[in-house]
């Protein structure tokens, strides 16, 4: 089944800046033939009011559903939340919380993603071609475990607190990260091809590679010498000692705030 959702321009809506809460846009909901409603502020509206929805073909399992999102979806939140299979392709940019809790399937974003992409993700894949906001592949407030499985790849750069509380899965960031990437890391593998700052603060476990420079290194990591990884020389740190941590941080370069 192919579902095409084309968001219309919202200039004629009362306030085009109100985000759309669209947790029902998942292959699962279309597979179960649900009536798709979304939140626009304190009103609930039918998705048809905001987008043209085209459905072609049928599906015998959720994995046979492909959703294509076109038009401006940069304020559309929670797309793909709890999805278990199928694919979602977003032609432009997508709003916050895309792929929260997803456990299977694939999301591809050709533009950029706002904050909390893949929050508390359990499985499946996310590929974002543009940049990503804060809290990419992170956890929820008060939660002790963030992303637990699956993979996230961001071709651009990500904001602050990327992979906060990560406990499993793989994350690959081609660009730079903001401050406090991999804070409270508990497991999983994160690879940052660009620069980062205050990386792996308070980590207790897991592995992080930084191909660029780790600025303002947390001063409580133990230096363990250098290693060769994919033909490059990396400094190996263990920590965070302040947190009785046993995580591994490999970075090509680093600086301290002295």
């Amino acid at each position, binding site marked *: 089944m192919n579902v095409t959702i084309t968001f219309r321009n919202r200039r004629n809506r009362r306030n085009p800046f109100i985000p759309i809460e669209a947790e029902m846009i998942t292959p699962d909901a279309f597979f179960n033939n649900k009536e798709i409603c979304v939140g626009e502020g304190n009103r609930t509206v039918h998705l048809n009011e905001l987008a043209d929805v085209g459905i072609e073909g049928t599906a015998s399992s959720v994995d046979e559903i492909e959703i294509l999102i076109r038009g401006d979806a940069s304020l559309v939140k929670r797309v793909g939340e709890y999805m278990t299979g199928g694919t979602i392709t977003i032609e432009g940019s997508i709003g916050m919380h895309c792929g929260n809790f997803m456990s299977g399937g694939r999301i591809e974003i050709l533009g950029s993603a706002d*904050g*909390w992409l893949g929050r508390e993700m359990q499985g499946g894949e996310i590929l974002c071609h543009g940049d990503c*906001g*804060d*809290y990419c592949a992170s956890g929820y407030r008060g939660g002790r475990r963030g992303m637990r499985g699956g993979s996230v790849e961001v071709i651009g750069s990500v*904001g*602050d*607190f990327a992979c906060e509380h990560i406990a499993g899965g793989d994350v690959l960031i081609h660009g730079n990260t*903001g*401050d406090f990437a991999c804070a409270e890391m508990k497991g999983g593998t994160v690879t940052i091809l660009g620069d980062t700052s205050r990386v792996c603060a308070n980590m207790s476990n897991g592995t992080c590679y930084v191909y660029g420079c780790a600025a303002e290194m947390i001063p409580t990591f133990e230096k363990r010498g250098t290693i060769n990884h994919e033909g490059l020389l990396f400094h190996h740190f263990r920590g965070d000692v302040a947190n009785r941590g046993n995580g591994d941080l490999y970075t090509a370069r680093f600086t301290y705030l002295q």
Partner: protein
Amino acid sequence: MTFILSSGRTIPQGSFVEHKLSKGYQRATSMIYIHPLDIMELGIESGDRVHVTSDIGSVVLTTEATNDIPSGCVYIALGPYANAITGGYTHGTGMPDYKDISVEIEPTDDPVQTVWDLMEMIGGVRYGK
């Protein structure tokens, strides 16, 4: 010259909190505390006015020399003047950057604006005089 600006509470700012449109509040919140060496470097004297510019905007403030702040840093009371150069981005935390803002400072003869002026610049309408 580039400085790191932080804002915070001060006694004068606090005691005029109930009188936000008074001269006293204006004075208390448009004062920028700066190290004497930096004052010399800028070629001005304590009490002279400066243009303080961040990525967000620019505002005129009155300098006050003090040794309590390290050279290279400046400090201002919380208030409308600080806000004129503070951005609304919160890094996904809800809290804007009221501290550690990178600013450019240069001497000026321009006057310090009133709180009403600042409010009108962003689309407000003053009440009374």
